[in-house]
C-alpha cells in the first residue's frame, strides 16, 4: 500500500464498492435475458476508475471504452440511467440507442463512447485540443486497455497530444488480455508505458489494484497537466475477473487458467483496502450494512429501469441528424 496521508480512503472504498456492486447486480439479473446488451464487466479493476476519477471535476472530460460502466459511475453517472440504457429503455442515458457500450453523459463531460478498440483515444485528445484553444482549464482523461495500445490511433493520439502539449491524461488499464489473447502474444514488451515515454510524455506505472497508489499517481499526473506541462500517461497493471464480454469467468470455457484468476482474486482491490482500513478501525459489520443499503438502492434502480417504457420506433429516424443550424 502507498502512503495514506491525505488520501480519502473511505470515499475511495465507497466508490469501488459502488462500481463492484453495480456490476454484480448485472451478473445477478443477466440470466433472465431481459438485459439484451453485451456487457463488458470491470470487476477486479475498480481501483483505477475510482483512484483517477476522484480527481476529476464534472466539467472535466472523460473518455471510456466498451468497458464503460465504472468510468461513468465514478464520474457521477446515475446507476438507473445506465441500467435503463442496458434494458433498452427510453429513460436510458442514450434513450436506448447505445446500450452498454456507448454511454454518454455530456453534463459529466462524457460526450459519447466508442466501442471500437482504440477509437476513443483520439477523442480525449480532441476534447483536450478544444480546451486548449478555448483556454477553459478543463482536463481530459482517456481510459483504454492494453489492446488499444496496439492500434494506430494510440500512437497518432500520443504523438499529437505531446506535440501540442495538450491537457490530457491517458490511463492504460493493462489487464493482460485482449479478449483471451495474452499480452505476450500481441506485444514484444509487456510495459505499454515504454511507448508513451518514447513520445516524451510524463509517464508512470502503478499497481492498478492498489487504489491509494492509483490515487497518488493520478494526483501527480494531473498536477503536471494542470501546470500546463502537457499530457501525462499512467499504465495501471491489473486483471479482469470476468470474460471479455458477459458475466462468466473465462476459465469455465478454457479461455484462461483458473489458478491465475484465483491468484489475482487474492489481490482484490476492495479487499486490499478493507484489510488496510481494518487496522485503523474499520468495522466489517458496519461496512456490510453500508453494502446492504447500496444493494437496496441498486435493486430499486434496476426495478425502476426495467419497468420504464421502450423507446418509440420513430426515434430512430429522428435521431439520425440534428435539425437546428448554427
Amino acid at each position, binding site marked *: 500500500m502507498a502512503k495514506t496521508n491525505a488520501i480519502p480512503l473511505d470515499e475511495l472504498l465507497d466508490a469501488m464498492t459502488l462500481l463492484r456492486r453495480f456490476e454484480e447486480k448485472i451478473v445477478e439479473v443477466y440470466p433472465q435475458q431481459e438485459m439484451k446488451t453485451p456487457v463488458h464487466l470491470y470487476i477486479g479493476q475498480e481501483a483505477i476508475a475510482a483512484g483517477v476519477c476522484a480527481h476529476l471535476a464534472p466539467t472535466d*472530460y472523460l*473518455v471510456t471504452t466498451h468497458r464503460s460502466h465504472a468510468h461513468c459511475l465514478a464520474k457521477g453517472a446515475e446507476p438507473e440511467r445506465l441500467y435503463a440504457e442496458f434494458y433498452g429503455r427510453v429513460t*436510458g*442515458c*442514450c*434513450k*436506448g*440507442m*447505445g446500450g452498454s457500450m*456507448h454511454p*454518454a453523459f*455530456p453534463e459529466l463531460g462524457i*460526450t*459519447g463512447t*466508442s466501442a*471500437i478498440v482504440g*477509437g*476513443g*483515444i*483520439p*477523442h*480525449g*485528445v*480532441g*476534447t483536450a*485540443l*478544444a480546451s486548449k*484553444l*478555448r483556454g477553459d482549464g478543463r482536463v481530459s482523461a482517456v481510459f483504454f486497455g492494453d489492446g488499444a495500445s496496439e492500434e*494506430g*490511433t494510440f*500512437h*497518432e*493520439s500520443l*504523438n*499529437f497530444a505531446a*506535440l501540442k502539449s495538450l491537457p490530457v491524461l491517458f490511463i492504460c488499464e493493462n489487464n493482460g488480455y485482449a479478449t483471451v489473447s495474452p499480452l505476450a502474444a500481441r506485444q514484444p514488451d509487456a510495459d505499454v508505458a515504454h511507448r508513451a515515454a518514447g513520445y516524451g510524455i510524463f509517464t508512470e506505472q502503478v499497481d492498478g489494484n492498489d487504489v491509494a497508489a492509483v490515487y497518488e499517481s493520478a494526483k501527480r499526473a494531473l498536477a503536471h497537466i494542470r501546470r500546463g506541462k502537457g499530457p501525462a500517461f499512467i499504465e495501471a497493471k491489473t486483471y479482469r475477473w470476468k470474460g471479455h464480454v458477459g458475466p462468466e469467468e473465462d476459465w469455465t470455457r478454457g479461455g484462461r487458467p483458473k489458478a491465475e484468476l484465483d491468484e489475482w482474486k487474492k489481490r482484490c482491490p476492495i479487499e486490499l483496502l478493507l484489510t488496510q482500513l481494518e487496522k485503523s478501525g474499520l468495522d466489517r459489520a458496519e461496512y456490510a450494512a453500508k453494502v446492504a443499503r447500496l444493494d437496496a438502492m441498486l435493486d430499486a434502480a434496476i426495478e425502476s429501469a426495467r419497468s420504464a417504457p421502450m423507446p418509440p420506433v420513430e426515434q*430512430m429516424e*429522428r*435521431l*439520425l*441528424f*440534428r*435539425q*437546428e*443550424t*448554427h
Partner: protein
Amino acid sequence: MPWTSVCLNDEDVCCLEESGHRCLTYVQALREAHDMILASDPEAFVIGEGVDDAGGVFGSTLGLAETYGERVMDMPIAENGLTGVAIAAASVGMRPILVHMRADFLPMSMDQIVNHAAKWHSMTGGQVSIPLVIRSIIGRGWGSAAQHSQGLHSLFLSVPGLKIALPATPYDAKGMLLAAHADPNPVLYFEHRWLYGAKGPVPAGHYTVPLGQAVVRRSGADATVVAVSHAVPQAMQAAAALKDDGIGVEVIDPRAIAPLDMDTILASVAKTGRLVICDVACRTAGYGAELTCRLAEAAPQLLKAPVRRVSFPDLPTPASPALEAAYYPGVEDIKRAVRQTLAK
C-alpha cells in the same frame, strides 16, 4: 439567374462582370468562405496537412494562418487519429474544418468517419452531434495515377448520418462551405482540382446553399443529364453542343448526393423521359446507381429509354497520359450517351 450559371469560358465571365457581377475563381471562393467562417465564429478552426504552408492547399487556405494563428493548424500525417481529434472537438461545440489534399486519404480515416462521426448523434440518443466539415479534393491528370485521383464520395452513401456535398461552381463552393459549417452534422465536402481555376459570380456577403437542394443548370425538353462536380461543366458543354443539333438537354446538378434531391430529378425526367448520369468516379455503385434505383422505385413509367451512365471505368486510374486520355470520359461521351437515350 447568375448564381446558378456555369461559366464555360472567359466570354461568359466577362459578360457577367460587365453586368456588374463580382466574379471569383472556385479556389478564391473557397478561401473567402474560410476567411468568413474564421472571422465570424471563434469556435471554428481549420486543420490539415499544409493548411498553413506556402501553398495553402492549392490556395484555398492561403495566408489565413497569418490572420488566425493557431486556428489554422498543420497536423501530423495521421488521418484517422486526427479525424478522431476533430470529431471530439466538434462534440463539445467547436466547428472544425478538416482538410485533405486528396480524397484518396479519406480511406485512412474510414473508422472515425464511418464508425464514429456518422453515428454519434444517434448513438448518444441525440445528446451530442458532430458539426465537422471534412474537405477533400479529387485530383486528375499529370500521372496522378490510382492513389491521387479517386472520386470516393459514393462510398459513403451507404453510411447513414453523413451529408455529402460536391460543389461545382464558385458560387456553390462558397455557399455550400458556409452551409456545411453551419450544419450541426458531419459533412463530407468533395472538391475537384480541375474546378479550382473556374470563374463565376460570387456575392461578397454571407449566403448559404442548402445541402440537398439540386439546381437546374440549364433547361431542356428532350433529355435529362444529372452531373456532379467537374462533370457539371462538361455536361453544360455537351448540352450547348447538342442544342446546335436541335436536342434540348436539361442539366441538373444535385450539388449533394446525400441528401439527394430526387424531387427535382423526378420532375425533370417526367418532362424528358430520358436520363444520363455523369460522375467523377468509377461506374459501379456510384451515386447514379442509387439515383436510378430510387427512380425505378418511385416512377419507372417515366423512362422512355434505358438510363445511361458516363463515369470512369471500373479500373484504377492509370498514370500514362495515353491511358489517362482513354480513361477519363469527356464532353463527347456525354453527347453520345444523350443521343443513345434518344435513339429509338
